[in-house]
C-alpha cells in the first residue's frame, strides 16, 4: 500500500476493496483458477457492484414488463398470466409412430406440438432418393407427400393446438402440406396457429440444411411472409434461430449477434420487397439455445429483447407496437449433454431450463437425458417435461416477473451482450449485410474458431465437463435407448410408391408446371406450393423444380 500516494477518497469503493481486502486474501489463499471466465470465455471479476453498471438507468434500460424496451419481458403479466408453452420437439420413424407420440405428449400436459422431420425431408429429398438411404425416419419423421401429413396429424385438433415445424430449405413446401391437411378437414387457415422455422440464413451459417443458394432462399422466405400475413395471420412464418449457431460452436455473444443480425436482414428483405413492417414483423419469432452458464444465458435473452426493440424502432418506427416484441422459443443445449454418466444430463437440463424461464422465454423444449445416443424414449421425454412442470409449479420462480433484474452481475452481463452485438453489427454492415457476410464465410469461420477454442479449453482443463475431464469413471451405466423400426424405410417407400400410383396424374403434372412457371417469373409461390400439396406432389419433386430454376448450394467446407 505504501506506493499508493493518492488519498482514499479518490479511490472507488470497489477499488479499495479489491486492493486492500480481496488482494490480501488472494495473496494468502490463491483462487481455484488463474482466470475466471464465462462459458463464452468473457472474463469474470470477483465481484460486481453499482460501479460496474456505468450509466445504467433502470427505467430507460429495463423499463417495465410489456413496455419498451421489453428487457423485463414481452407481456405485462408474463408467467403470472400464462406459463410458457411447454413444447417438446418430437418425431421419429413413420407418420403413424409420431402421431402416437403426439397424442401421448398432449395427454401428459404438453400444450404445443413440435415436429422433428427426418434428414431426407429436411434436405428436400424423397424417401426413395439414393441419398436418403439409411436415413429415412431415423432423426425424425419422414414426410414425402400430403398423405404422410394427414396421418401425422390424424385426430389432432389443428384449430386448438399450435404446431411448430422445424423445417427450413423446403419450409414453404412442408407448410403448404400442413395447410392442405387442415383444408381437407375444413379447418379455415386463419384458425391455424404455429411456427415454421424457415430460417434460411442460419442454414448456411450453421445447420447445413440448405437447398438453393442464399439469395433465392431469402426470396422464398419473403414469399412466406407475404402469404402468412395475408392468409394465416396466427402463424409465425419464421423462427430466427440462434440454437443451431450456438450448437455449432458459437459463443453466447455470437449466437445473439448473428441471430439478431439475421433477423434485421429478413426485415430489410421484406421491406425491400414492398411489405409493410407493421404487417409482417410481428410474425417473426426467435429461437435461442440455453447453455450451461446460468447468468450469461439469462443476460442473453434479456439483451436480445432490448436490442430487437431498439433496432426495429430506430430503423422503422413501426406504428404496430407488436413489431418491437422479440418473442422467443428456447431449447436447452443439446451440445452440453454427455454420453458418459447420462443421468447427469437431467441436472444440466434443469439448470438450463431455469435460465430460460428466468430469461423470460415464451416456450421451451427441455432435452432428454438419452439424446446423445438416439432420439429420446417415451420415459426420457416424460422426465424432461416434468422438469419444466416442477420449475413452473414448485420452484416459485414463475410467480413474479424478471426476478433477477437489478443484480449487478446480471445487468453488467446484459450490457456486455449489447456491446458484443454492436461490434458484430458494425463488422457485418461493413461487409455489406448478413447475406454478403454469409457468402464470404464470415460467421461460419467465426463459429469454427470458437468451437476449436472451447475444445482446447476443455482439453487443457480450463473448462470443466463433469464426467468427461473431471470425475470421469470407467463404469458405464447403460441406459435404455429408442430403437427405430428397421423396416420404416421400406414401408415409407411403399407408401410413396402407392401415392405416386394413385394420385391424379394430370393435376399433379400441372401443379408442378405452374410452380416452375411462377418460380421463373419470380411470382408468388405459396399458392403454387399449396396446389402441389393438394395434388400429392412430393417434397422431392417440388424441390427438384426449385433447384432447376434457382440452382443448388454446395458446402464450401470452411474449417
Amino acid at each position, binding site marked *: 500500500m505504501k506506493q499508493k500516494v493518492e488519498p482514499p477518497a479518490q479511490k472507488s469503493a470497489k477499488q479499495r476493496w479489491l486492493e486492500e481486502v480481496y488482494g490480501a486474501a488472494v495473496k494468502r489463499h490463491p483462487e481455484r483458477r488463474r482466470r475466471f471466465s464465462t462459458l463464452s470465455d468473457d472474463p469474470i471479476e470477483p465481484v460486481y457492484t453499482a460501479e460496474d453498471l456505468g450509466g445504467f438507468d433502470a427505467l430507460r434500460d429495463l423499463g417495465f414488463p410489456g413496455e419498451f424496451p421489453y428487457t423485463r419481458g414481452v407481456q405485462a403479466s408474463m408467467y403470472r398470466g400464462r406459463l410458457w408453452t411447454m413444447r417438446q420437439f418430437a418425431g421419429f420413424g413413420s407418420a403413424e409412430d409420431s402421431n402416437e407420440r403426439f397424442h401421448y405428449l398432449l395427454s401428459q400436459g404438453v400444450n404445443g406440438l413440435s415436429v422433428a422431420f427426418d*434428414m431426407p425431408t429436411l434436405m428436400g429429398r424423397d424417401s426413395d432418393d439414393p441419398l436418403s438411404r439409411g436415413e429415412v425416419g431415423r*432423426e425424425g419423421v419422414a414426410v414425402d407427400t400430403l398423405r404422410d401429413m394427414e396421418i401425422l396429424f390424424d385426430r389432432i385438433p389443428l384449430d386448438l393446438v399450435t404446431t411448430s415445424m422445424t423445417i427450413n430449405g423446403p419450409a414453404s413446401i412442408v407448410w403448404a402440406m400442413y395447410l392442405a391437411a387442415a383444408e381437407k378437414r375444413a379447418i379455415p387457415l386463419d384458425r391455424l396457429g404455429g411456427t415454421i422455422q424457415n430460417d434460411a440464413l442460419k442454414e448456411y451459417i450453421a445447420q447445413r440444411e440448405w437447398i438453393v443458394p442464399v439469395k433465392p432462399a431469402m426470396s422464398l422466405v419473403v414469399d412466406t411472409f407475404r402469404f402468412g400475413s395475408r392468409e394465416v395471420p396466427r402463424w409465425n412464418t419464421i423462427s430466427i434461430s440462434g440454437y443451431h449457431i450456438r450448437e455449432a460452436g458459437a459463443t453466447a455473444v455470437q449466437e445473439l449477434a448473428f441471430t439478431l443480425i439475421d433477423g434485421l436482414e429478413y426485415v430489410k428483405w421484406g421491406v425491400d420487397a414492398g411489405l409493410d413492417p407493421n404487417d409482417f414483423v410481428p410474425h417473426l419469432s426467435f429461437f435461442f439455445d440455453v447453455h450451461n452458464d446460468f447468468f450469461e444465458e439469462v443476460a442473453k435473452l434479456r439483451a436480445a429483447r432490448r436490442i430487437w426493440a431498439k433496432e426495429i424502432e430506430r430503423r422503422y418506427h413501426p406504428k404496430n407496437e407488436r413489431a418491437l416484441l422479440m418473442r422467443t422459443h428456447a431449447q436447452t443445449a443439446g451440445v452440453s449433454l454427455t454420453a458418459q454418466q447420462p443421468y447427469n444430463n437431467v441436472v444440466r437440463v434443469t439448470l438450463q431450463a431455469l435460465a430460460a424461464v428466468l430469461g423470460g422465454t415464451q416456450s421451451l423444449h427441455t432435452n432428454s437425458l438419452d439424446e446423445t445416443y438416439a432420439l429420446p424414449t417415451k420415459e426420457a421425454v416424460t422426465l424432461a417435461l416434468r422438469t419444466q412442470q416442477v420449475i413452473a409449479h414448485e420452484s416459485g420462480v414463475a410467480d413474479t416477473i424478471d426476478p433477477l433484474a437489478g443484480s449487478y452481475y446480471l445487468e453488467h452481463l446484459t450490457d456486455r451482450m449489447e456491446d458484443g452485438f454492436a461490434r458484430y453489427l458494425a463488422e457485418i454492415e461493413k461487409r455489406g449485410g448478413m447475406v454478403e457476410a454469409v457468402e464470404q464465410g464470415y460467421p461460419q469461420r467465426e463459429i469454427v474458431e470458437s468451437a476449436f477454442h472451447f475444445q482446447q479449453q476443455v482439453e487443457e482443463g480450463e473448462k470443466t465437463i463433469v464426467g468427461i475431464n473431471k470425475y470421469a469413471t470407467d463404469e458405464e451405466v447403460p441406459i435404455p435407448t429408442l430403437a427405430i423400426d428397421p423396416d420404416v424405410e421400406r414401408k415409407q417407400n411403399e407408401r410413396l410408391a402407392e401415392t405416386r400410383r394413385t394420385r391424379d396424374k394430370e393435376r399433379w403434372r400441372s401443379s408442378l408446371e405452374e410452380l416452375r412457371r411462377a418460380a421463373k417469373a419470380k411470382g408468388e409461390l405459396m399458392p403454387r406450393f399449396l396446389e402441389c400439396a393438394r395434388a400429392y406432389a412430393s417434397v422431392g419433386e417440388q424441390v427438384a423444380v426449385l433447384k432447376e430454376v434457382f440452382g443448388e448450394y454446395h458446402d464450401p467446407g470452411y474449417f
Partner: protein
Amino acid sequence: MKRPIRVVMAKAGLDGHDRGVKVVARALRDAGMEVIYTGVHQTPEQVVETALQEDADAVGVSLLSGAHNYIFPRIAELMREKGMDDVLLFGGGIIPEADVPALAKIGVERIFQPGASLEEITKYVRDAVPKRRGIATGA
C-alpha cells in the same frame, strides 16, 4: 521421401452436424498433417473419389445421423474395389457401441465416441497411418 500425413475428413449422407469434424480437422492440421475437408452431404462415392484424388493416407468419416450401418460399409467396399488397402479408414460421431464390432470387421479400424479428445485422435492417426502402410506393403 517423407511427406506430411494426408487426411481426408468427410461428412457423408445428409447429416449436417459438422462441429466435430471441423474441430478434428483443425486439430490434425495444427498437428502438421495435410487435411482436406469434403464439406457436408457427400455420397460414399464422392468421399472415396476425393481420397483417391488426394492420395490420402487416411479417411476420417463423421456420422451423427444414424446412417452409419449403411454408409461405412459402402465406403469400405468402394475402397476395397479401388485397391485402397493401404488407406486407413476411421470414424467418429454418434455410433452405438453395439455397432462398433461389426464396423471393425468390415474395415473401419477405429470409431471415436463423443468425449474423445483431440490429443487421442491425433495420436491415433499419427501411429495408425504408418502401421497401415506397413501392413499393406508387407514392410
